[in-house]
């Protein structure tokens, strides 16, 4: 029942640049059970997208996985040859990208692109692939009349649905969604998030949902992981993490979201910028911006604080057991 589908162990990723090595992801550990979903939250440049690209093994040319294991169904993806990995992509692990327009080829009909993706990965007849595409359209709430249309004839919301349909095409065990709704209107976003979570739980897929908006994550998943400067600094259930965050960064992130309901509280301002990923500080990466900083935060890496199935790396946690 709670068998882990995906285990990420000590994953670190670097980019080689002219200025030196950028430590985009550092020592990330994460486990996902079948049908479980986790939201990854953090500011731009915290490594959430790099982590996703590393799991798919589609990093840019200057990106390199330095260490770690990504075990999917008992098999370490990082040890596979490229042709072997290509077979896993879309079938075992797939991804919904941020910019839907960039993932659809403008000169081909949307349905044909999905059919092509299916036939690339599975040995099925064109007719079967088309039938499956038709039912995928139904699943994501697209009208069948759109099958024969081109991407430019779609609205932003429809395109995003088509890209989700494509990611689902080969029935993957793990789906990674990288801010798929950021460019969309609230009502459309709401509907797509509802549908996505519904599909995810019905198909018992494991999902990693990436967003900078903690409110969106609260809507799609029960558990949340907070990333800062390439590290996963806190993980726990959304409800407890929201009510009693452990890491000061998590607290700051929560308090900077404008609220519609309840008391109108002043917005929390988080000053400063994330650290330079070329030269990570010795101690805690958040120390320079942290309101609860202590002397040792600047000199020693923070220890793990864990209780009630949640954890964070911090010397001076906001909440303790």
């Amino acid at each position, binding site marked *: 029942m709670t068998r882990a589908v995906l285990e990420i162990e000590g994953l670190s990723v670097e980019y080689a640049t002219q200025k030196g090595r950028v430590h985009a992801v550092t020592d990330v550990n994460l486990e996902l059970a079948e049908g479980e979903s986790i939201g990854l939250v953090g*500011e731009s440049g915290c490594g959430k997208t790099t982590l996703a690209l590393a799991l798919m093994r589609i990093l840019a040319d200057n990106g390199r996985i330095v260490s770690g294991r990504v075990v999917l169904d008992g098999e370490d993806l990082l040890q596979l040859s490229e042709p072997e990995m290509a077979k896993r992509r879309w079938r075992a692990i797939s991804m919904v990208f941020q910019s839907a327009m960039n993932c659809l080829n403008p000169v081909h009909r949307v349905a044909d692109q999905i059919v092509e993706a299916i036939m690339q990965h599975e040995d099925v007849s064109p007719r079967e692939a088309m039938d499956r595409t038709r039912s995928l359209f139904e699943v994501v709430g697209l009208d069948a009349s759109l099958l024969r249309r081109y991407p430019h004839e779609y609205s932003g919301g429809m395109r995003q649905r088509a890209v989700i349909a494509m990611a689902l095409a080969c029935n993957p065990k793990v789906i990674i969604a990288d801010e798929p709704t950021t460019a969309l209107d609230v009502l459309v*976003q709401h509907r797509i998030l509802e549908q996505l979570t519904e599909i995810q739980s019905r198909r018992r897929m494991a999902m990693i949902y990436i967003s900078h908006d903690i409110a969106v994550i*609260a809507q799609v998943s029960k558990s949340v992981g907070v990333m800062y400067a390439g590290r996963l600094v806190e993980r726990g259930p959304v409800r407890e993490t929201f009510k009693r965050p452990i890491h000061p960064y998590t607290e700051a992130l929560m308090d900077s*979201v404008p609220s*519609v309901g309840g008391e109108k509280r002043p*917005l929390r*301002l*988080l*000053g400063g910028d994330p650290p330079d990923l070329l030269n990570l500080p010795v101690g805690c990466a958040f120390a320079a911006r942290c309101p609860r900083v202590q002397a040792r935060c600047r000199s020693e890496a923070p220890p793990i604080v864990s209780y009630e199935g949640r954890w964070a790396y911090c010397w001076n946690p906001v909440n303790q057991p």
Partner: protein
Amino acid sequence: MNAIPEPGQVPAVKAEHLRKLYPVGGAFLRAPRSFIHAVDDVSFTVEDGKSLGLVGESGCGKTTTAKMVVKLIEPTSGEIQVRDSGGRAVSLSDLDGRATKRFRRSAQMIYQDPYESLNPRRTVLDTIAEPLVVQGMGTFAEREERVMSMMAQVGLTPVRNYLLRFPHELSGGQRQRVAIARALILAPKIVVADEPTSMLDVSVRSNIIQLMLDMRDRLGATYLYITHDVAVARYMCDQIAVMYLGKIVEMGSTEEILRDPVHPYTQALISAVPVPDPEQRKSSIAVKGGVARPIDPLPRCRFYDRCPAATSVCEESDHPSLSARNGGRMVACYNR
């Protein structure tokens, strides 16, 4: 500082029966086949020093409305009056070329995407000084001094470090600060902000919201704030006008509308905003379908197709006009 005119009865901005139609179809020397009703009979007033939020989804006409207020586009019909420095109401359609340029000194716009609104080949100094150059204000040294003081006010400090940078050397939040500084350097009376925070990260967003609030308090301008996010509007706006397909469907005090939305569309919009606290989660209100394009709309309520509370009167009668409810609220709905 300019002399502040007597606080009179004249509102800072008054829009009456604004309408903007865009032709579609048609051909050379042939009348267009139909019209998109981008903004259709919209009226509102913003009192001096207050802020009005125009809230709605893409294509509801909020940006078109805002651009008409700063005279970037001309309305098809209807009138916009602004208060001039003498405290008199002036109609924007009466302004000639020279008067328009003078008007631009008092009305500025902040755009959504700081990656597109800044010229990549211009330094921060040149960008922020541009409005002063266009208006022929000050010598180079005076302009530089004003730019530096404005940069300090919007938090681009230490100023010397940023003065000669190009946009690509700035983060998204810093770029938006440059855009805000450029809009505010002329100390405008009217500021139109078109979703200035929607492209930014959450933590940067709260900083920019706070900056806009601070600058409003300091410079005392009248704000028109365009957003699709009611949560942001809550922090920025005294009043909001919820727009749907070119019409205002509900208008009133921001806090009251958020607490007790009356129009079914407003209710759906508010219930769809993601809330981080799982205990505050309300049940969402379902609306059907998506936003249609308002091409030659049928004479019925614009929200009829999607409304969960629609009845036959909504289909048989034309779009309801705004009517006053308790506490100064205006709502356009037959059933609420």
